[in-house]
């Protein structure tokens, strides 16, 4: 069943990203996702960017529905079901967070929980340009150090966030890496962490319909992202030929990422 709730607050995070906050009572853990229905339009799987009773999702304009979602006003009704899927294991104490673009949305609540329970977080955030850096202020709140990279060099390192995370991995010791962003980026994060034996956990995105482990829309190798994920330990992903290369469209056909 869905709960119809109202958008309590709409926050413009970047020119292409908006956070919608709403009251939704069921408890959720960082890393889990909800299905959010925009009545009259689509229903989307969205990782929670806020997991308390006042929850939130942070939506980036990608397709027609996400573009429309950006203009949803406070007070608008939305349908929520979930939360679904697994979550980040919060036991590691020294965390490296690597967020690419809107991928930081799902990492932020996990990092906040880790910091609250005495962990230390170092964050590497990447974006196309300075204005698109998501949750920079929020990251300063939960991180010991925040480093940024932009494709155009408008802020921080001029280049890939993986250049930054690779350097951080060589300079410091970490118990775990949490990452979300383009799969090519996550592949590079895994490649850099593997020789140092730092476990990497990736939050994955795929087309979803049922979110209940039934319809097969989010099939990823032998896994279903909705029930086996969305958080995957790197060894589960590294062996998959589709990781970083293909996804399935709504028909189930394999298409390039």
């Amino acid at each position: 069943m869905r709960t119809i709730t109202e958008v309590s607050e709409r926050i413009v995070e970047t020119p292409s990203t908006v956070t919608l906050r709403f009251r939704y009572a069921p408890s959720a853990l960082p890393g889990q996702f909800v299905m959010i229905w925009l009545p009259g339009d689509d229903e989307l799987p969205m990782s929670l960017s806020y997991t308390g009773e006042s929850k939130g999702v942070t939506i980036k304009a990608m397709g027609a529905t996400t573009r429309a979602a950006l203009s949803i006003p406070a007070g608008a009704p939305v349908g929520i079901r979930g939360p679904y899927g697994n979550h980040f294991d919060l036991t590691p104490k020294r965390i490296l967070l690597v967020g690419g673009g809107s991928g930081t949305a799902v990492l932020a609540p996990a990092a906040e929980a880790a910091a609250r329970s005495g962990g230390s977080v170092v964050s590497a955030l990447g974006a196309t340009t300075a204005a698109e850096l998501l949750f920079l202020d929020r990251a300063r709140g939960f991180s010991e150090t925040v480093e940024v990279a932009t494709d155009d060099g408008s802020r921080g390192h001029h280049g890939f966030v993986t250049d930054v995370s690779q350097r951080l991995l060589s300079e410091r010791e970490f118990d775990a890496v949490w990452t979300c962003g383009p799969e090519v980026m996550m592949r590079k994060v895994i490649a850099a962490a593997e020789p140092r034996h730092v476990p990497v956990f990736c939050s994955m995105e795929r087309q979803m319909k049922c979110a209940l482990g039934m319809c097969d829309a989010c099939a990823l190798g032998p896994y279903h992202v909705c029930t086996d994920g969305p958080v995957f330990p790197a060894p589960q992903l590294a062996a998959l030929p589709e990781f970083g290369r293909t996804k399935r469209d709504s028909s189930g056909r394999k298409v390039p990422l």
Partner: protein
Amino acid sequence: MVDLRTTVAGISFRNPLWLASGIWGESGNSLKGAWDAGAGGVVTKSIGSEPRLGYPNPTIETYDKWGMLNAMGLPNPGIAEYPQEIEVARSAGATVIGSVFGADADEFAALAGRMAATGVVAIELNLSCPHAKGLGSEIGQDPDQVRDVVAAVKRAVRIPVIAKITPNHYDVPMLAEAAENAGADAISAINTVRAMAVDVRLRRPVLAHGSGGLSGPAIKPVGLACVWQIYERVKIPIIGIGGIISADDVIEYLLAGARAVQVGTAVAFEGIGIFHRLREDLSTRLAALGVATTGELVGAGHRGAGAA
């Protein structure tokens, strides 16, 4: 020791618990996963001539543990690309049944021919999807079209042909008879029951498509009645579908006349491990009942019972 092996239309299955069409069936890895989890056979997603995206979300509404409503809209990768998925499952040893849907007898026959070439053991004809215009039950509610489709497919393939029948008709057994008369080798019954969800606050249907099909425990009594009645009207084997979640559910379908069953919605409730659990529970339950093979129970409910 209970022997769960089951023969349907001359094909041997390691147990009577099949994965239903539409569940875990879009990708070969998932079909393999269901097989590895213990399913006796795995039915593919219904495949059409061309890739089909299906309906926008919401495509699902859930009702705790008693039912589920869906209008997926027959999404599928299309027959040109699907054989590579079947190959993944077949190379893992899975017994695969290929489900197809079409708009008329010619399309069904062409698809069935291409599906048969992938090495599936049987074809299941989707004559029963309740939410796709010009397809599924819109064809399957007309006994003349059922006859034409089955006859055309029988001419096109040598492997057994299973007609999957809709419950959304005033005389369900008549549809099964039409399939049998046209040469069908078995009947699957039932597909989902046409249904709808409406949201009070939004004053609109929940599913993007409007109506959909109800599955899960809520429809088990409907499925049992259909299987029971079909058993009294046709001689070909029946595969029972609808709301199966326990060993007793399976036995009820056997008693009503099913030789095998399909499990779908329960996978969402319990995960794919349900096949292992059902297989173990069924063995235990049949042993306790002093039953050596599932075949002993097929239709046994009819002997000495009044007409339904």
